[in-house]
């Protein structure tokens, strides 16, 4: 379903939509080509599904091209993803050659004629070798703060050929002699994951997930990964549980075919020790409505990650008026205003302490939640990201 820009008048800050129309007047008639590796799922694809129709409606001729690759190519780029995010992966010269060949093939097959070409992430990054016209921007959604050296050396050669790079946080960027811009990710307030829901719809979904609505709920929505620290979340819950009768819900995508996920889920089950108030929920793929309902049911949202990409679930929770207690991972700390919209904590004990403090002060939960929603309205809605992209289009491809 396409959402018209005017539908955002009700949810974005006063004057935003009119401002976007004026801003778009400066770039009307220009062309933009977005290129990504996949059309479905989260990350870049989730953003482009919403952003491309909005830019088109504003008079910017916007296309979204998706690269085609072999099974071997996608195995290589998965390894490259992990290596760029610091994991120890072995990538052979043959694998790099596969990357080059698929990028060349796509560069010749896709229509990349545009005033601005925005390449999302590393999978299609090699296509810059074949650029013909326009400004080329590399939009990196990954955390490149501590990449495996060889993987980054390989990708850096391509990065240098762009006119600029865009990162989600300053700390995610590597040193590059081209302009580097900061564009925070955003949430779409009208998408199934964030749209308003009525009480009966929420209750129906939460009941289906098997979560009773009889006690305050502390919720963490995160994959079952070590970096998300589900064991830390359970420890924090146990500290709170001594004083407050509450529930902990750890909800993440399913772990089938995911060795680490299976192991972490098993550890979490063991740590939960059959406590009936700890719920480990494996969500189906694209469980947008389930996440929406869980976040709206939560009393407090916890994001006890040790390391995080941007962690847009923090903004999703604040949009639903929930205070967030989050680990001191860079993306989380960038979204929470400490002691105003929630708390940034450095340990499981710190999380327990802050959760307990909030449950002791229900008025504070309401106040922080309300301020958090306004904070998201002004800083983390898709309308702000649309403004960023239109501004970049004007600044980087002057006519």
């Amino acid at each position: 379903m396409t959402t018209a820009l005017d539908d955002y008048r009700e949810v974005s800050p006063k004057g935003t939509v009119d401002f976007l129309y004026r801003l778009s007047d400066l770039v009307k008639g220009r062309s933009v080509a977005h290129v990504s590796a996949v059309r479905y799922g989260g990350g870049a694809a989730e953003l482009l599904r919403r952003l491309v129709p909005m830019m088109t409606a504003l008079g910017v001729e916007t296309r979204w091209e998706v690269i085609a690759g072999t099974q071997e190519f996608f195995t290589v780029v998965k390894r490259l993803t992990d290596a760029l995010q610091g994991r120890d992966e072995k990538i052979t010269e043959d694998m790099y050659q596969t990357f080059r060949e698929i990028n060349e093939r796509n560069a010749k097959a896709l229509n990349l004629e545009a005033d601005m070409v925005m390449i999302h992430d590393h999978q299609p990054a090699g296509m810059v070798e074949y650029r013909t016209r326009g400004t080329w921007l590399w939009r990196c959604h990954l955390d490149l703060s501590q990449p495996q050296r060889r993987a980054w050396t390989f990708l850096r050669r391509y990065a240098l050929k762009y006119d600029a790079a865009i990162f989600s946080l300053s700390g995610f960027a590597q040193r590059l002699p081209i302009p580097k811009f900061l564009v925070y990710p955003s949430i779409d307030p009208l998408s199934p994951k964030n749209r308003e829901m009525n009480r009966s719809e929420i209750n129906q979904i939460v009941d289906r997930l098997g979560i009773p609505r009889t006690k305050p709920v502390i919720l963490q929505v995160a994959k079952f990964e070590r970096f998300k620290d589900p064991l830390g979340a359970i420890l924090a819950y146990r500290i709170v549980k001594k004083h407050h009768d509450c529930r902990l819900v750890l909800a993440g995508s399913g772990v089938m075919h995911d060795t680490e996920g299976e192991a972490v889920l098993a550890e979490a089950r063991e740590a939960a020790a059959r406590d009936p108030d700890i719920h480990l929920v494996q969500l189906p793929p694209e469980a947008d409505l389930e996440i929406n309902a869980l976040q709206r049911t939560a009393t407090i949202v916890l994001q006890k990650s040790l390391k995080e990409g941007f962690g847009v679930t923090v903004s999703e929770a604040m949009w639903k008026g929930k205070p967030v207690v989050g680990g001191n991972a860079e993306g989380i700390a960038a979204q929470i205003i400490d002691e105003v919209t929630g708390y940034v904590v450095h340990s499981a004990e710190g999380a327990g302490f802050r959760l307990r403090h909030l449950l002791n002060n229900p008025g504070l939960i309401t106040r922080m939640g309300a301020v958090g929603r306004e904070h998201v309205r002004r800083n983390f809605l898709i309308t702000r990201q649309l403004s960023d992209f239109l501004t970049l289009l004007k600044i980087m491809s002057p006519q």
Partner: protein
Amino acid sequence: MTQQAHHKISDSTFTFIGCSEVQEILGQQAEDEKELAELVEEVPLDSIHFHTHSYFLRHRFIERAYPNDFAQWVVMQVGDHVLGERLAVVDPFDYPNLEDLREEIISIIDDHLSRMSVIPRVVFGEPFHCKRSRILEVPIGLEVRSLAEFRQAVADVDVSAIYFHMFEAHFRLGREESDFSAWIRSGLGLHELADCIRSINPYLGSLERLRSSLITACDEFLAKA
């Protein structure tokens, strides 16, 4: 001051300009207070402007505890409340240009460090990342010719226009006073109100509070008529 003055239609219109900001990462960072002083010394003035002024553009609604990025980082990431408090009371309104403001910040950090036996640094927090703004002026199609129209426009306009005319025009583009007070003085000939608006310190709150102060100044002036 006369009744006529308040309803005067100016020969010159005031055209509201909004602005859009994208943040550019400069790639330099500091992990302790000495490195911060060195950064402040060497970064372009645009970056000093970014960390002391466009802070307001980014935090339009919520007033953070500290009114500039330097103080915010020193307290929240390094945990040095003394330096944070000293930097927090630096009022850019007191300095005629960004170079003087830069010198004051360096001088405060140097003075603080001269009294310390160790240099406070980030242990668990994040480094200070230097950035600067790329500001795009956006005509928003709103023109006024009288004080009443001006007052209404200030109440309704996108808050980025308040930022542009009060901060950007005056401090980065080097205009002698804010665009608002300049037009009220030269366009409407209302010197008393122009002086009143010129005396509003824009650093004491959020942009929304600044909008309220401007409206209040106009309303009080109109009421006196």
